[in-house]
Protein backbone atom coordinates (compact mmCIF):
# COMPACT_ATOMS: atom_id res chain seq x y z
CA UNK A 1 0.00 0.00 0.00
CA UNK A 2 1.00 3.66 -0.24
CA UNK A 3 2.15 5.20 3.02
CA UNK A 4 4.17 8.10 4.29
CA UNK A 5 7.67 6.97 5.29
CA UNK A 6 9.89 8.96 7.70
CA UNK A 7 13.56 8.90 6.73
CA UNK A 8 15.09 11.39 9.18
CA UNK A 9 14.71 15.06 10.13
CA UNK A 10 13.04 17.05 7.30
CA UNK A 11 12.92 13.93 5.08
CA UNK A 12 9.76 12.00 4.30
CA UNK A 13 8.71 10.11 1.20
CA UNK A 14 5.91 8.01 -0.17
CA UNK A 15 6.45 4.31 0.35
CA UNK A 16 4.61 2.48 -2.44
CA UNK A 17 5.06 -1.02 -1.11
CA UNK A 18 4.44 -0.89 2.61
CA UNK A 19 2.73 -4.11 3.77
CA UNK A 20 -0.93 -3.61 4.64
CA UNK A 21 -1.68 -3.74 8.37
CA UNK A 22 -3.18 -6.87 9.91
CA UNK A 23 -5.45 -7.63 12.84
CA UNK A 24 -3.08 -8.30 15.75
CA UNK A 25 -5.56 -8.22 18.64
CA UNK A 26 -9.24 -9.20 18.93
CA UNK A 27 -10.20 -5.56 19.48
CA UNK A 28 -8.40 -4.29 16.35
CA UNK A 29 -9.98 -2.92 13.19
CA UNK A 30 -8.40 -2.18 9.83
CA UNK A 31 -9.48 1.16 8.37
CA UNK A 32 -9.18 2.36 4.77
CA UNK A 33 -8.20 6.00 5.16
CA UNK A 34 -10.34 8.64 3.46
CA UNK A 35 -8.83 11.83 4.90
CA UNK A 36 -5.64 12.41 6.86
CA UNK A 37 -4.16 15.66 8.14
CA UNK A 38 -0.71 16.86 8.94
CA UNK A 39 -0.83 18.22 12.48
CA UNK A 40 1.40 20.92 13.89
CA UNK A 41 2.67 18.31 16.33
CA UNK A 42 3.67 16.08 13.38
CA UNK A 43 6.17 18.80 12.63
CA UNK A 44 7.94 18.10 15.91
CA UNK A 45 8.49 14.55 14.62
CA UNK A 46 9.38 15.82 11.14
CA UNK A 47 11.99 18.14 12.64
CA UNK A 48 13.53 15.30 14.66
CA UNK A 49 12.65 16.70 18.07
CA UNK A 50 10.77 13.72 19.54
CA UNK A 51 12.96 10.92 20.93
CA UNK A 52 12.50 7.38 19.55
CA UNK A 53 11.17 8.47 16.16
CA UNK A 54 12.35 5.55 14.08
CA UNK A 55 13.17 5.60 10.39
CA UNK A 56 10.44 3.78 8.47
CA UNK A 57 7.57 4.92 10.71
CA UNK A 58 4.36 6.24 9.16
CA UNK A 59 3.05 9.38 10.87
CA UNK A 60 -0.54 10.57 11.07
CA UNK A 61 -2.87 10.80 14.06
CA UNK A 62 -5.70 12.76 12.45
CA UNK A 63 -7.68 10.61 10.05
CA UNK A 64 -11.05 9.28 9.00
CA UNK A 65 -11.71 6.08 7.13
CA UNK A 66 -13.96 3.22 6.18
CA UNK A 67 -13.86 0.04 8.25
CA UNK A 68 -12.47 -2.81 6.15
CA UNK A 69 -12.09 -5.57 8.73
CA UNK A 70 -12.75 -6.02 12.44
CA UNK A 71 -11.35 -8.36 15.09
CA UNK A 72 -13.42 -10.99 16.86
CA UNK A 73 -14.09 -8.80 19.90
CA UNK A 74 -15.25 -5.69 18.03
CA UNK A 75 -19.01 -5.23 18.32
CA UNK A 76 -19.75 -1.56 17.67
CA UNK A 77 -18.27 -1.34 14.18
CA UNK A 78 -18.75 -3.32 11.02
CA UNK A 79 -17.10 -3.25 7.59
CA UNK A 80 -18.35 -0.31 5.57
CA UNK A 81 -18.80 2.08 8.49
CA UNK A 82 -17.27 5.50 7.86
CA UNK A 83 -15.59 6.60 11.06
CA UNK A 84 -13.56 9.39 12.58
CA UNK A 85 -10.73 8.06 14.72
CA UNK A 86 -9.60 10.04 17.81
CA UNK A 87 -5.85 10.43 17.94
CA UNK A 88 -5.71 8.82 21.40
CA UNK A 89 -5.50 5.03 21.55
CA UNK A 90 -7.50 4.12 24.64
CA UNK A 91 -8.51 0.79 26.18
CA UNK A 92 -11.57 2.25 27.89
CA UNK A 93 -11.17 0.25 31.12
CA UNK A 94 -7.90 1.14 32.86
CA UNK A 95 -8.23 3.51 35.84
CA UNK A 96 -7.50 6.51 33.62
CA UNK A 97 -9.81 5.65 30.73
CA UNK A 98 -12.57 4.76 33.18
CA UNK A 99 -12.42 8.39 34.33
CA UNK A 100 -12.53 9.64 30.73
CA UNK A 101 -8.84 10.49 30.64
CA UNK A 102 -8.62 8.87 27.22
CA UNK A 103 -5.36 10.62 26.45
CA UNK A 104 -3.70 8.90 29.41
CA UNK A 105 -4.51 5.23 28.80
CA UNK A 106 -2.24 2.80 30.65
CA UNK A 107 -2.74 -0.09 28.23
CA UNK A 108 -1.76 1.39 24.88
CA UNK A 109 1.81 2.55 25.29
CA UNK A 110 4.62 0.28 26.41
CA UNK A 111 7.46 2.69 25.87
CA UNK A 112 6.38 5.52 28.17
CA UNK A 113 4.10 5.87 31.15
CA UNK A 114 3.87 9.63 30.73
CA UNK A 115 1.60 9.48 27.69
CA UNK A 116 -0.99 7.13 26.26
CA UNK A 117 -0.73 5.59 22.82
CA UNK A 118 -1.07 7.91 19.83
CA UNK A 119 -1.27 6.88 16.19
CA UNK A 120 1.90 7.55 14.21
CA UNK A 121 3.59 9.55 16.92
CA UNK A 122 6.95 7.82 17.47
CA UNK A 123 7.70 4.87 19.70
CA UNK A 124 7.56 7.20 22.66
CA UNK A 125 3.80 7.17 22.04
CA UNK A 126 3.53 3.43 21.52
CA UNK A 127 5.16 2.70 18.17
CA UNK A 128 1.98 2.61 16.11
CA UNK A 129 1.96 3.32 12.41
CA UNK A 130 -0.30 6.25 11.67
CA UNK A 131 -3.01 7.25 9.25
CA UNK A 132 -0.96 8.93 6.53
CA UNK A 133 -1.40 5.76 4.54
CA UNK A 134 -4.06 3.91 2.60
CA UNK A 135 -4.77 1.56 5.49
CA UNK A 136 -4.19 1.71 9.21
CA UNK A 137 -4.59 -0.64 12.16
CA UNK A 138 -6.88 0.81 14.85
CA UNK A 139 -6.61 -0.92 18.25
CA UNK A 140 -9.49 -0.88 20.76
CA UNK A 141 -11.85 -0.22 17.86
CA UNK A 142 -14.94 -0.31 20.06
CA UNK A 143 -13.60 2.50 22.23
CA UNK A 144 -12.18 5.23 20.01
CA UNK A 145 -13.75 5.42 16.54
CA UNK A 146 -17.06 7.22 16.12
CA UNK A 147 -19.31 6.79 13.09
CA UNK A 148 -19.49 9.93 10.98
CA UNK A 149 -23.08 11.20 10.82
CA UNK A 150 -24.50 11.19 7.30
CA UNK A 151 -24.99 14.95 7.33
CA UNK A 152 -21.37 15.65 8.22
CA UNK A 153 -18.79 16.75 5.67
CA UNK A 154 -15.71 14.47 5.61
CA UNK A 155 -13.45 17.52 5.99
CA UNK A 156 -15.26 18.53 9.17
CA UNK A 157 -15.03 14.97 10.45
CA UNK A 158 -11.25 14.74 10.09
CA UNK A 159 -10.86 18.01 11.98
CA UNK A 160 -12.83 16.48 14.86
CA UNK A 161 -10.15 13.84 15.43
CA UNK A 162 -7.73 16.34 17.00
CA UNK A 163 -7.84 20.01 16.04
CA UNK A 164 -11.30 20.85 17.32
CA UNK A 165 -11.18 18.78 20.56
CA UNK A 166 -7.69 20.03 21.41
CA UNK A 167 -8.64 23.65 20.83
CA UNK A 168 -11.88 23.19 22.74
CA UNK A 169 -10.18 21.44 25.65
CA UNK A 170 -7.56 24.20 25.80
CA UNK A 171 -10.39 26.64 26.47
CA UNK A 172 -12.20 24.20 28.76
CA UNK A 173 -9.12 23.57 30.90
CA UNK A 174 -8.63 27.31 31.19
CA UNK A 175 -11.64 27.44 33.50
CA UNK A 176 -12.85 30.59 31.78
CA UNK A 177 -15.37 32.65 33.73
CA UNK A 178 -17.76 35.04 32.03
CA UNK A 179 -15.92 38.24 31.20
CA UNK A 180 -12.40 36.79 31.42
CA UNK A 181 -9.62 38.08 29.24
CA UNK A 182 -8.09 35.11 27.43
CA UNK A 183 -4.72 35.26 25.68
CA UNK A 184 -3.90 32.48 23.23
CA UNK A 185 -0.30 32.00 22.16
CA UNK A 186 -0.05 30.54 18.66
CA UNK A 187 -2.30 31.14 15.67
CA UNK A 188 -1.98 27.69 14.22
CA UNK A 189 -5.12 25.58 13.73
CA UNK A 190 -5.26 24.64 17.44
CA UNK A 191 -4.72 28.18 18.68
CA UNK A 192 -7.30 29.59 16.29
CA UNK A 193 -9.80 26.96 17.43
CA UNK A 194 -8.98 27.65 21.09
CA UNK A 195 -9.62 31.35 20.52
CA UNK A 196 -12.95 30.56 18.87
CA UNK A 197 -13.95 28.20 21.68
CA UNK A 198 -12.95 30.68 24.40
CA UNK A 199 -16.04 32.67 23.44
CA UNK A 200 -18.19 29.58 23.96
CA UNK A 201 -17.07 29.51 27.59
CA UNK A 202 -17.95 33.16 28.12
CA UNK A 203 -14.68 35.01 27.55
CA UNK A 204 -15.05 38.77 27.57
CA UNK A 205 -11.96 39.46 25.50
CA UNK A 206 -9.87 37.12 23.36
CA UNK A 207 -6.36 37.98 22.20
CA UNK A 208 -4.16 35.84 19.98
CA UNK A 209 -0.39 36.25 19.57
CA UNK A 210 1.75 34.89 16.72
CA UNK A 211 4.47 35.98 14.31
CA UNK A 212 2.77 35.25 10.97
CA UNK A 213 0.55 38.05 9.70
CA UNK A 214 -1.50 35.85 7.38
CA UNK A 215 -2.42 33.55 10.27
CA UNK A 216 -3.24 36.48 12.54
CA UNK A 217 -5.46 37.91 9.83
CA UNK A 218 -7.24 34.57 9.50
CA UNK A 219 -7.64 34.26 13.27
CA UNK A 220 -9.06 37.77 13.49
CA UNK A 221 -11.78 36.78 11.02
CA UNK A 222 -12.42 33.20 12.09
CA UNK A 223 -12.31 33.68 15.86
CA UNK A 224 -13.39 37.32 15.97
CA UNK A 225 -10.52 38.13 18.29
CA UNK A 226 -7.77 40.69 18.67
CA UNK A 227 -4.57 39.58 16.98
CA UNK A 228 -1.03 40.83 17.54
CA UNK A 229 2.28 40.03 15.89
CA UNK A 230 4.96 39.65 18.56
CA UNK A 231 7.65 40.63 16.06
CA UNK A 232 6.34 44.18 16.30
CA UNK A 233 6.21 44.09 20.12
CA UNK A 234 9.51 44.63 21.96
CA UNK A 235 8.34 42.97 25.19
CA UNK A 236 5.32 40.68 24.93
CA UNK A 237 4.70 40.31 28.68
CA UNK A 238 4.94 44.05 29.27
CA UNK A 239 2.57 44.60 26.35
CA UNK A 240 0.03 42.19 27.85
CA UNK A 241 0.29 43.85 31.25
CA UNK A 242 -0.33 47.22 29.66
CA UNK A 243 -3.38 46.21 27.64
CA UNK A 244 -4.93 44.16 30.45
CA UNK A 245 -3.86 46.15 33.53
CA UNK A 246 -2.98 43.21 35.77
CA UNK A 247 -2.32 40.47 33.24
CA UNK A 248 -4.68 38.12 31.44
CA UNK A 249 -7.12 36.07 33.48
CA UNK A 250 -6.20 33.05 31.43
CA UNK A 251 -3.30 32.21 29.10
CA UNK A 252 -3.37 29.31 26.67
CA UNK A 253 -0.15 27.83 25.24
CA UNK A 254 -1.06 26.45 21.83
CA UNK A 255 2.49 26.57 20.48
CA UNK A 256 4.63 23.98 22.22
CA UNK A 257 8.25 23.17 21.68
CA UNK A 258 8.97 25.01 18.45
CA UNK A 259 8.23 28.52 19.61
CA UNK A 260 10.13 31.49 18.21
CA UNK A 261 10.68 34.83 19.90
CA UNK A 262 13.52 34.18 22.32
CA UNK A 263 17.05 33.56 21.07
CA UNK A 264 18.16 31.74 24.21
CA UNK A 265 15.26 29.27 24.07
CA UNK A 266 15.65 28.85 20.32
CA UNK A 267 19.33 27.91 20.64
CA UNK A 268 19.00 25.69 23.70
CA UNK A 269 15.62 24.19 22.77
CA UNK A 270 15.30 23.92 19.00
CA UNK A 271 18.85 23.96 17.76
CA UNK A 272 20.84 22.03 20.36
CA UNK A 273 18.07 20.12 22.21
CA UNK A 274 19.65 20.97 25.57
CA UNK A 275 16.07 21.53 26.72
CA UNK A 276 12.96 19.79 25.42
CA UNK A 277 12.14 22.39 22.81
CA UNK A 278 11.74 26.12 23.08
CA UNK A 279 9.30 27.10 25.86
CA UNK A 280 9.00 30.76 24.88
CA UNK A 281 5.21 30.72 24.66
CA UNK A 282 4.92 28.99 28.02
CA UNK A 283 7.25 31.50 29.63
CA UNK A 284 5.17 34.35 28.24
CA UNK A 285 2.00 32.65 29.45
CA UNK A 286 3.31 32.26 33.00
CA UNK A 287 4.63 35.79 33.14
CA UNK A 288 1.69 37.35 31.28
CA UNK A 289 -1.18 35.88 33.29
CA UNK A 290 -2.54 37.64 36.37
CA UNK A 291 -1.78 36.52 39.93
CA UNK A 292 -4.02 33.58 40.73
CA UNK A 293 -4.64 33.08 37.02
CA UNK A 294 -4.81 29.90 35.02
CA UNK A 295 -2.37 28.65 32.37
CA UNK A 296 -3.75 26.01 30.03
CA UNK A 297 -1.20 24.05 28.02
CA UNK A 298 -1.96 22.00 24.93
CA UNK A 299 1.29 22.74 23.10
CA UNK A 300 3.46 19.66 22.80
CA UNK A 301 6.82 19.52 24.58
CA UNK A 302 9.48 16.85 24.64
CA UNK A 303 9.84 14.44 27.55
CA UNK A 304 13.04 15.95 28.97
CA UNK A 305 13.02 19.28 30.81
CA UNK A 306 12.36 22.89 29.97
CA UNK A 307 13.61 26.12 31.49
CA UNK A 308 10.48 27.95 32.63
CA UNK A 309 9.99 30.47 35.46
CA UNK A 310 8.54 28.03 37.96
CA UNK A 311 9.27 30.50 40.77
CA UNK A 312 6.74 32.85 39.25
CA UNK A 313 4.17 30.05 39.18
CA UNK A 314 4.58 29.77 42.95
CA UNK A 315 4.79 33.44 43.71
CA UNK A 316 1.78 34.31 41.55
CA UNK A 317 -0.28 31.38 42.78
CA UNK A 318 -0.99 30.09 39.32
CA UNK A 319 -2.98 27.03 38.35
CA UNK A 320 -1.55 25.08 35.46
CA UNK A 321 -3.82 22.73 33.59
CA UNK A 322 -2.61 20.57 30.76
CA UNK A 323 -3.31 17.34 28.95
CA UNK A 324 -3.62 15.70 25.62
CA UNK A 325 -7.19 16.23 24.48
CA UNK A 326 -9.62 13.56 25.61
CA UNK A 327 -11.19 13.37 22.16
CA UNK A 328 -13.73 10.65 22.85
CA UNK A 329 -15.13 12.52 25.85
CA UNK A 330 -15.60 15.72 23.89
CA UNK A 331 -16.90 14.38 20.58
CA UNK A 332 -20.65 14.28 21.37
CA UNK A 333 -20.65 17.97 22.33
CA UNK A 334 -18.46 18.99 19.40
CA UNK A 335 -20.49 17.05 16.84
CA UNK A 336 -23.52 19.02 18.07
CA UNK A 337 -21.59 22.26 17.67
CA UNK A 338 -20.71 21.40 14.08
CA UNK A 339 -24.29 20.32 13.36
CA UNK A 340 -25.67 23.59 14.71
CA UNK A 341 -23.16 25.67 12.78
CA UNK A 342 -21.46 26.93 15.94
CA UNK A 343 -18.11 25.57 14.79
CA UNK A 344 -16.96 25.36 11.16
CA UNK A 345 -13.72 23.39 11.36
CA UNK A 346 -13.22 22.75 7.64
CA UNK A 347 -12.76 26.48 7.13
CA UNK A 348 -9.27 26.00 8.60
CA UNK A 349 -8.23 23.73 5.71
CA UNK A 350 -6.18 25.69 3.21
CA UNK A 351 -4.43 22.87 1.34
CA UNK A 352 -5.72 19.54 0.11
CA UNK A 353 -3.17 17.28 -1.61
CA UNK A 354 -3.01 13.65 -2.68
CA UNK A 355 -1.10 11.38 -0.29
CA UNK A 356 1.37 10.84 -3.14
CA UNK A 357 2.62 14.42 -2.60
CA UNK A 358 3.42 13.85 1.07
CA UNK A 359 6.97 15.29 0.83
CA UNK A 360 5.66 18.54 -0.63
CA UNK A 361 2.75 18.62 1.83
CA UNK A 362 5.12 18.43 4.80
CA UNK A 363 7.42 21.09 3.41
CA UNK A 364 4.57 23.51 2.66
CA UNK A 365 3.17 23.12 6.18
CA UNK A 366 6.55 23.19 7.90
CA UNK A 367 7.93 26.19 6.00
CA UNK A 368 4.54 27.99 6.14
CA UNK A 369 4.51 28.43 2.36
CA UNK A 370 1.51 29.60 0.35
CA UNK A 371 -0.25 30.97 3.47
CA UNK A 372 -0.76 27.43 4.72
CA UNK A 373 -2.83 26.91 7.85
CA UNK A 374 -3.98 23.29 7.62
CA UNK A 375 -3.07 20.54 5.17
CA UNK A 376 -5.26 17.54 4.43
CA UNK A 377 -4.11 14.60 2.33
CA UNK A 378 -6.39 12.25 0.45
CA UNK A 379 -5.19 8.74 -0.47
CA UNK A 380 -5.88 7.44 -3.97
CA UNK A 381 -8.25 4.75 -2.75
CA UNK A 382 -10.23 7.09 -0.53
CA UNK A 383 -13.31 7.37 -2.73
Amino acid sequence: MHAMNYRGPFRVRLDRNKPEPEILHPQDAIIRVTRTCICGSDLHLYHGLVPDTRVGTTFGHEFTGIVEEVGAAVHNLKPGDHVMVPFNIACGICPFCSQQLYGNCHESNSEATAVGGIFGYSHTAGGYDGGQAEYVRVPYADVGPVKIPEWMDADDAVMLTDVVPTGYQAAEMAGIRKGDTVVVFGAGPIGIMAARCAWLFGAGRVIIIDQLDYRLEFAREFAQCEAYNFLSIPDVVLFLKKITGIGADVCIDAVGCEASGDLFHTITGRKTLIQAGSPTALEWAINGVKKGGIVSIVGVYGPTANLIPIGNVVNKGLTIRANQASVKRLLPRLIEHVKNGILNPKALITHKLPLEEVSEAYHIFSAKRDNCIKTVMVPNHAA
Partner: protein
Amino acid sequence: MPHKFIFMESQKQQSVSEWSHTASEAGGKNVNEMAEKYAHIKDWGIDADPDNDPTYPIKQWNGNDYLRLNYKRPVQQPLTIEKLHSNERPSVSAVFGNAVPPSGMSGMLRRYAFRFSEGRWAHWLTLLLADRVNMVEGIADDIRIGYFPNIFKERGWNAEWKYNQKGVIKTVAIATGFAAVAILLLTRGRKKYSY
Protein backbone atom coordinates in the same frame (compact mmCIF):
# COMPACT_ATOMS: atom_id res chain seq x y z
CA MET B 1 15.82 -11.85 18.42
CA PRO B 2 15.00 -15.58 18.81
CA HIS B 3 11.30 -16.19 19.23
CA LYS B 4 11.84 -18.40 22.27
CA PHE B 5 13.62 -15.62 24.10
CA ILE B 6 10.80 -13.21 23.36
CA PHE B 7 8.29 -15.68 24.76
CA MET B 8 10.28 -16.04 27.96
CA GLU B 9 10.59 -12.28 28.23
CA SER B 10 6.86 -12.02 27.73
CA GLN B 11 6.16 -14.39 30.61
CA LYS B 12 8.53 -12.45 32.78
CA GLN B 13 6.98 -9.15 31.82
CA GLN B 14 3.51 -10.23 32.81
CA SER B 15 4.50 -10.72 36.43
CA VAL B 16 3.56 -7.70 38.50
CA SER B 17 4.56 -9.22 41.80
CA GLU B 18 7.58 -6.95 42.18
CA TRP B 19 5.36 -3.97 41.51
CA SER B 20 2.21 -4.64 43.42
CA HIS B 21 3.64 -4.91 46.93
CA THR B 22 2.51 -1.44 47.95
CA ALA B 23 -0.14 -1.15 45.29
CA SER B 24 -2.06 -4.20 46.45
CA GLU B 25 -2.58 -2.71 49.90
CA ALA B 26 -4.57 0.16 48.48
CA GLY B 27 -5.75 -1.74 45.44
CA GLY B 28 -9.45 -2.38 45.29
CA LYS B 29 -10.26 -0.14 48.23
CA ASN B 30 -12.90 2.49 47.70
CA VAL B 31 -13.09 5.69 49.68
CA ASN B 32 -15.21 4.12 52.44
CA GLU B 33 -12.76 1.28 52.90
CA MET B 34 -9.99 3.82 53.13
CA ALA B 35 -11.89 5.66 55.87
CA GLU B 36 -11.89 2.43 57.86
CA LYS B 37 -8.20 1.97 57.26
CA TYR B 38 -7.41 5.46 58.50
CA ALA B 39 -9.97 5.47 61.33
CA HIS B 40 -7.16 5.76 63.87
CA ILE B 41 -6.29 9.19 62.49
CA LYS B 42 -8.65 11.72 64.05
CA ASP B 43 -10.88 13.50 61.51
CA TRP B 44 -9.17 11.87 58.58
CA GLY B 45 -10.59 13.18 55.31
CA ILE B 46 -13.35 15.38 56.77
CA ASP B 47 -12.58 18.19 54.36
CA ALA B 48 -11.98 16.02 51.32
CA ASP B 49 -13.91 17.26 48.32
CA PRO B 50 -13.81 15.19 45.13
CA ASP B 51 -14.99 18.24 43.19
CA ASN B 52 -11.79 19.96 44.19
CA ASP B 53 -9.76 17.63 42.00
CA PRO B 54 -7.64 20.12 40.02
CA THR B 55 -8.50 18.28 36.85
CA TYR B 56 -12.22 18.67 37.54
CA PRO B 57 -14.39 18.53 35.40
CA ILE B 58 -11.98 17.07 32.84
CA LYS B 59 -11.67 13.92 34.91
CA GLN B 60 -14.82 12.07 35.89
CA TRP B 61 -13.62 11.03 39.33
CA ASN B 62 -14.60 7.48 40.33
CA GLY B 63 -11.82 6.44 42.68
CA ASN B 64 -10.36 3.87 40.31
CA ASP B 65 -6.92 5.38 40.79
CA TYR B 66 -6.82 3.34 44.01
CA LEU B 67 -6.96 0.14 42.02
CA ARG B 68 -3.37 0.93 41.09
CA LEU B 69 -2.27 -1.97 38.90
CA ASN B 70 -4.97 -4.34 40.10
CA TYR B 71 -7.60 -3.54 37.49
CA LYS B 72 -8.89 -6.05 34.96
CA ARG B 73 -6.58 -5.68 32.00
CA PRO B 74 -7.64 -6.06 28.37
CA VAL B 75 -6.61 -9.20 26.51
CA GLN B 76 -2.86 -9.19 25.83
CA GLN B 77 -1.71 -8.72 22.23
CA PRO B 78 0.68 -11.61 21.42
CA LEU B 79 4.29 -10.54 21.76
CA THR B 80 5.74 -11.68 18.42
CA ILE B 81 8.27 -8.90 17.98
CA GLU B 82 10.89 -7.37 20.22
CA LYS B 83 9.04 -4.66 22.14
CA LEU B 84 10.90 -2.40 24.52
CA HIS B 85 8.97 -1.08 27.46
CA SER B 86 9.49 1.62 30.02
CA ASN B 87 10.97 0.32 33.27
CA GLU B 88 8.33 2.40 35.04
CA ARG B 89 5.76 -0.25 34.20
CA PRO B 90 5.93 -3.99 34.89
CA SER B 91 5.19 -5.22 31.39
CA VAL B 92 4.23 -4.22 27.88
CA SER B 93 0.81 -2.63 27.46
CA ALA B 94 -2.11 -4.83 26.46
CA VAL B 95 -1.89 -3.55 22.91
CA PHE B 96 1.18 -2.04 21.35
CA GLY B 97 2.48 -0.74 18.07
CA ASN B 98 4.62 -2.87 15.80
CA ALA B 99 5.86 -0.14 13.48
CA VAL B 100 9.64 -0.54 13.62
CA PRO B 101 11.22 -3.04 16.05
CA PRO B 102 14.71 -2.05 17.22
CA SER B 103 17.55 -3.24 15.02
CA GLY B 104 21.20 -2.56 14.23
CA MET B 105 23.34 -0.07 16.09
CA SER B 106 20.37 2.19 16.79
CA GLY B 107 18.55 -0.80 18.28
CA MET B 108 21.45 -1.46 20.63
CA LEU B 109 21.32 2.16 21.74
CA ARG B 110 17.56 1.97 22.26
CA ARG B 111 17.89 -1.17 24.40
CA TYR B 112 20.48 0.63 26.49
CA ALA B 113 18.23 3.71 26.81
CA PHE B 114 15.38 1.62 28.21
CA ARG B 115 17.54 0.60 31.18
CA PHE B 116 16.92 4.11 32.47
CA SER B 117 13.60 5.45 33.74
CA GLU B 118 11.66 8.18 31.96
CA GLY B 119 12.90 10.82 34.37
CA ARG B 120 16.53 10.34 33.37
CA TRP B 121 18.29 12.32 30.67
CA ALA B 122 20.25 9.17 29.83
CA HIS B 123 17.01 7.61 28.61
CA TRP B 124 15.90 10.38 26.28
CA LEU B 125 19.25 11.63 25.03
CA THR B 126 20.31 8.09 24.18
CA LEU B 127 17.08 7.68 22.22
CA LEU B 128 17.76 10.92 20.35
CA LEU B 129 21.27 9.65 19.54
CA ALA B 130 19.74 6.38 18.36
CA ASP B 131 17.40 8.34 16.08
CA ARG B 132 20.34 10.07 14.39
CA VAL B 133 22.20 6.78 13.99
CA ASN B 134 19.00 5.29 12.61
CA MET B 135 18.86 8.02 9.97
CA VAL B 136 22.30 6.99 8.67
CA GLU B 137 21.24 3.32 8.84
CA GLY B 138 18.21 4.23 6.75
CA ILE B 139 20.36 5.69 3.98
CA ALA B 140 22.68 2.67 4.11
CA ASP B 141 19.71 0.30 3.94
CA ASP B 142 18.34 2.15 0.91
CA ILE B 143 21.67 1.94 -0.92
CA ARG B 144 22.05 -1.73 0.03
CA ILE B 145 18.86 -2.55 -1.89
CA GLY B 146 19.94 -0.39 -4.82
CA TYR B 147 17.73 2.60 -4.03
CA PHE B 148 19.43 5.97 -3.89
CA PRO B 149 17.20 8.32 -1.93
CA ASN B 150 16.30 11.57 -3.68
CA ILE B 151 16.95 13.80 -0.71
CA PHE B 152 15.82 16.96 -2.53
CA LYS B 153 12.48 15.32 -3.28
CA GLU B 154 12.18 13.91 0.26
CA ARG B 155 12.74 17.38 1.71
CA GLY B 156 9.91 18.73 -0.46
CA TRP B 157 12.07 21.12 -2.42
CA ASN B 158 9.69 20.91 -5.39
CA ALA B 159 7.24 22.84 -3.26
CA GLU B 160 9.95 25.26 -2.15
CA TRP B 161 10.76 26.01 -5.78
CA LYS B 162 7.07 26.45 -6.56
CA TYR B 163 6.34 28.86 -3.72
CA ASN B 164 9.68 30.47 -2.90
CA GLN B 165 11.85 30.71 -6.02
CA LYS B 166 13.64 33.84 -4.82
CA GLY B 167 14.51 32.16 -1.55
CA VAL B 168 15.87 29.07 -3.30
CA ILE B 169 18.01 31.19 -5.65
CA LYS B 170 19.30 33.20 -2.68
CA THR B 171 20.14 30.04 -0.72
CA VAL B 172 21.92 28.47 -3.67
CA ALA B 173 23.84 31.69 -4.35
CA ILE B 174 24.98 31.97 -0.73
CA ALA B 175 25.96 28.28 -0.60
CA THR B 176 27.86 28.63 -3.89
CA GLY B 177 29.64 31.70 -2.55
CA PHE B 178 30.70 29.91 0.62
CA ALA B 179 31.85 26.90 -1.41
CA ALA B 180 33.86 29.09 -3.78
CA VAL B 181 35.58 30.88 -0.88
CA ALA B 182 36.32 27.56 0.81
CA ILE B 183 37.82 26.09 -2.38
CA LEU B 184 39.87 29.22 -2.90
CA LEU B 185 41.27 29.08 0.62
CA LEU B 186 42.03 25.39 0.38
CA THR B 187 43.73 25.82 -3.00
CA ARG B 188 45.89 28.65 -1.63
CA GLY B 189 46.88 26.53 1.30
CA ARG B 190 48.04 23.69 -0.95
CA LYS B 191 50.18 26.03 -3.08
CA LYS B 192 51.82 27.39 0.03
CA TYR B 193 52.93 23.97 1.19
CA SER B 194 53.86 22.63 -2.25
CA TYR B 195 57.35 24.17 -2.16
